């Protein structure tokens, strides 16, 4: 088993430009330090129709409310404002670009969370293919990989539960089974910036083999740190 950079077609080149936009890294960095409620705010705003910050202040009194017992505190509120501002910037990129930015943010967020435990012998990489002896390589690269010789990890990232489909699940499971053929224990997971319950509803209808594929949903993204 070995990792390889994905070949870049025209679509990948365009997408690479979005991935390289500083807004993506900045938004992901804020979300890496965010609470689950702030991540829900980001999801709502980046899905949202309105881009007036005051609208979102009113929708999320738990984060921005002034009343006694709101429980936010100044530092939490300040961070929530930063998350809101970055999310509005993404939303303001327009309908056409927004979905690509959202996908890039989830990938970058996943990479940043994993990077907290990366080492020189287990680097975190992006857009990598996984090759196995005697097996035709998958066309689509994996979004994020942890390239440890002993315990490699492979991640696919989705903005919403709706992005979970048989192709994604099968590709992840194929990586795991091909690695097992080479006596390598590779961890495979799908990271979804959506609620666990919505993801499980999606998975419940899938017939793809996913028993050993881990789901990391919005509420539990910090699991990626360990």
């Amino acid at each position: 088993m070995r990792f390889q950079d994905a070949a870049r077609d025209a679509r990948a080149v365009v997408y690479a430009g979005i991935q390289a936009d500083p807004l993506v890294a900045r938004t992901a960095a804020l979300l890496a330090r965010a609470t689950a409620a702030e991540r829900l705010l980001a999801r709502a705003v980046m899905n949202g129709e309105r881009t007036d910050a005051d609208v979102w202040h009113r929708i999320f009194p738990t984060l921005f409310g002034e009343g006694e017992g709101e429980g936010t505190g100044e530092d939490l509120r300040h961070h929530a404002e930063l998350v809101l501002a970055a999310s509005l910037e993404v939303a303001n990129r327009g309908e056409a670009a927004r979905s690509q930015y959202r996908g890039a943010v989830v990938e970058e967020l996943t990479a940043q969370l994993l990077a907290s435990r990366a080492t020189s012998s287990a680097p975190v990489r992006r857009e990598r293919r996984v090759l196995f002896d005697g097996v035709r390589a998958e066309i689509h690269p994996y979004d994020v990989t942890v390239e440890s010789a002993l315990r490699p990890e492979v991640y696919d990232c989705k903005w919403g539960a709706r992005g979970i489909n048989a192709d994604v699940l099968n590709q992840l499971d194929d990586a795991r089974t091909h690695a097992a053929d080479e006596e390598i224990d590779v961890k495979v997971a799908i990271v979804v910036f959506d609620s666990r319950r919505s993801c499980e509803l999606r998975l419940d209808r899938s017939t793809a083999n996913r028993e050993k594929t881990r789901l990391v949903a919005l509420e539990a993204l910090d699991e990626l740190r360990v």
Partner: protein
Amino acid sequence: MVPRPPGGRYATGVNERHRVTERAAASYRALAELAESVEDEWQYVNDLVDAYLPSIRALAGDDDESSFAPDRIAAVDEAIAEIGLISDPHKAIDWLSTFPHVVALALRGDVDSPAGSAPAGGVSVGTRTGAGGVASEAGAPEPDDDSPFRLLLRDDR
């Protein structure tokens, strides 16, 4: 003889709780009707509705009046207004999985589990976990004793 309710304020509070959650449920149903026009996702849309609609309605059962303070009811109405602007059925699907959690957070409730079952944890304000805090395997955040929001939800407050 059935005792009278302790006062009009209680009855008004109960009614308002039901009114706001029913408004949210009706809006959610309308959003689902828009989303159903994506034929390939008809099953998923209905799975979401079957799961979340009872959970939204069950939020009315929270007897903590502070969960239904005016700013929280206004938050739900603002979220209802937001999804009322959606005309793209694909965006409607995105919101079908998001709106219930936004409403639940506003009302300090939980839609992570089937209505009537034990809460799975939900989205709490929490403290940042960047220093190493980790959510549980089941996906629910670890109890965070330092969070004032958590303290508000504790039975022993």
